[in-house]
């Protein structure tokens, strides 16, 4: 196995991109990544793209070939593969790209993610996303994602006594970070009152507990670590990559407010990276709902179960806290173009490790990403460090 580095990152702005098509989102993020790595498209050996549901969102399948074509690479005939694991599609694309480079099969590999979610109406979006759960046992019974995560929240509150205010502080903190991120969908701070008085979606989750519907794309360029300096002075090394699965239905879990796949994926990544929890200086976690961030902090092993709410209240997860969580603003404030989120997380950690994160810069040598599909049926964790 070869060591692998991230040598280029590219993002579109996240938000409601009415004037940008699905294919143009990808091309824009890819072009930014190539520019960042100072390379041309002809150097790319292979592309993996994470995309959850272009078939439902923009009625487009066969996304890999479309992307190769509109990236101007059709005549190069390189392999381009779309991978799908609901909201963890981006995380999966990253792991596939990592595997391709580490194995020696390909040298320069792009891992990308793209989703255009605003071209259909809200109920269609909600139903497409519900496909990330078990359609027969959850979706057809009426469960949507806010509903499923509200069950997690209710169970968590019952077991650990989390307060409604603590839950809201997750959103407040992520908006504070998002306000410092120029590509974030919501670049504004909010107050706890705003969260507590926002529209009730699925008790106890309110609108401001939920990540938004987002159009956006992200791309990173991977290459063997020993070639990284050809492309950048500040390569970031991939220390550990873990992917895990669990039951697709929430009700089949051992414990519905613990995401065992998060723990399993993190353990794989930590073992490979040969680092400890205490060595991690920042984490991009999958806060599709505020409760998910609290579960993630605990299930990744950074805090004892039931304590993340209090730690959030004490400011431990803030940019200047003990372990900054979601410096990008997370899914809540930066936005959640589902297939792109796992790659955006890697872009953020890479940007941070290079010291290029501007007002939201965290001082850390090692960072981690945590990308979840469904209610935790697929999880991808990555650990990245300065090379």
């Amino acid at each position, binding site marked *: 196995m070869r060591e692998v580095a991230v040598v280029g990152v590219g993002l579109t702005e996240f938000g*409601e991109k*009415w*004037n940008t098509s699905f294919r143009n989102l990808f091309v824009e993020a890819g072009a930014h990544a190539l520019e960042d790595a100072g390379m041309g498209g002809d150097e790319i050996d292979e592309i993996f793209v994470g995309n959850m549901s272009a078939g439902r969102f923009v009625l487009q399948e066969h996304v890999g070939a479309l992307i190769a074509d509109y990236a101007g690479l059709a005549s190069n005939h390189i392999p381009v593969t779309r991978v799908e694991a609901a909201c963890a599609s981006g995380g999966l694309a990253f792991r596939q790209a990592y595997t391709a480079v580490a194995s020696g099969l390909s040298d320069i590999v792009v891992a990308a993610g793209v989703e255009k979610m*605003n071209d259909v*109406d*809200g109920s269609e979006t909600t139903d497409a996303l519900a496909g990330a759960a078990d359609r027969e046992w959850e979706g057809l019974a009426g469960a949507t994602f806010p509903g499923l995560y509200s069950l997690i929240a209710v169970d968590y509150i019952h077991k650990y006594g989390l307060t409604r205010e603590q839950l809201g502080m997750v959103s407040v903190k992520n908006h504070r970070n998002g306000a410092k991120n120029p590509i974030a969908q919501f670049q504004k701070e909010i107050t706890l009152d705003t969260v507590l008085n926002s*529209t*009730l979606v699925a008790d106890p989750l309110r609108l401001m507990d939920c990540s938004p519907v987002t159009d956006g794309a992200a791309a990173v360029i991977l290459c063997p670590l020993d070639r990284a300096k050809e492309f950048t002075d500040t390569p970031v090394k991939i220390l550990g990559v873990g992917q895990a699965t669990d039951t697709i239905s929430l009700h089949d879990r051992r414990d519905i407010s613990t995401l065992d796949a998060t723990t399993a994926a993190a353990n794989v990544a930590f073992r490979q990276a040969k680092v400890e929890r205490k060595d991690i200086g920042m984490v991009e976690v999958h806060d599709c709902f505020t409760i998910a961030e609290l579960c993630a902090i605990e299930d990744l092993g950074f805090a004892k179960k039931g304590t993340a709410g209090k730690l959030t209240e004490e400011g431990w997860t803030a940019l200047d806290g003990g372990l900054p969580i979601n410096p990008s603003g997370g899914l809540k404030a930066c936005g959640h173009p589902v297939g792109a989120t796992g790659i955006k997380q890697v872009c953020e950690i890479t940007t941070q490790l290079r010291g290029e994160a501007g007002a939201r810069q965290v001082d850390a040598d090692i960072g981690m990403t945590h990308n979840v599909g469904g209610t935790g049926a697929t999880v991808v964790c990555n650990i990245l460090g300065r090379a």
Partner: protein
Amino acid sequence: MVGIITYGAYLPRYRIKTEEIARVWGANGADISRGLGVFEKSVPDLDEDTITISVEAARAALARRDLDPAEIGAIYVGSESHPYAVKPTSVTVGEAIGATPVMTAADLEFACKAGTAGVQAGMGLVKSGMVKYALAIGSDTAQGAPGDALEYTASAGGGAILVGEEDPIAEINHTLSFSSDTPDFWRREGQEYPSHGGRFSGEPGYFKHVVGASKMMLEAMGTRPSDYDYAIFHQPNAKFPRNASKSLGFSAEQINPGLMVPYLGNTYSGAVPVGLSAVLDVAKPGERIFVTSYGSGAGSDSFDITVTDVIDSDIFDRSAAPTVADLLADKKYLDYALYAKHKGKIVMPE
């Protein structure tokens, strides 16, 4: 100079509160009211439709000024709820006010801006000398499917603007439009209720066109927002016109006199004519009015208007017809059951 000779508005008496609609659908009425800035909306009576509303508005306009209706050479009624798909609303209005038979007439449709499109068409006929007066009406009994977001705002009402050149109560200094093919809201032939693109109706629809037309007007006239005493924007809810006017630099004081939507709902083609009527109810000679309508599909018409001395002269009597404030205050609340009956949502067996 071409201008407004007289004006009139009509609003049905019945109202339903946002909270009452929300109650039926298990939604949080307070949240919806706050989000839309709409607290209640008008509902037509069982026998009211776009024709009767248009006639009432036209009669209110003619009550304010002594003129020969036979000299009205053109009538355009803009609406998206003409009672007949084929059979013009405009001739029934012409007949009712005594403008027939020496006149041209047509029904217009451009979602919520067909009324202001009628004003522009009328201005052209008057300026060219083809007619002495042209009557433009914007009027609707708007449809919103039960339980759809539109049901909270779709209301009924209309306004009439008579355009001419002789002693106008307000001069129309300039008009221009900003249009594009933007499918944010539509209703196909035979469909009972319109469809809409959800959030797409905001930025790419309303804001692009309203702000686009308004900026073009400010540039064309070399004016700033502070040069106007009043500003009227299309008002599908209270949030959109407030945000658009704020981004352009207009103040709440400038838009509030013409912002009827919080206690009227969205009268669609009637919205800007009713808002303009409310402003003309109170405007003083010399005051300047900025107007931008919006019709989904999509387009905006902007107008720069200056009120003249005629509005306070012997030949014009504002008090001869009810003001928009009078019409808003004269109200009777319905519960959802009676509202459903008024709107024809209760289907009787054959």
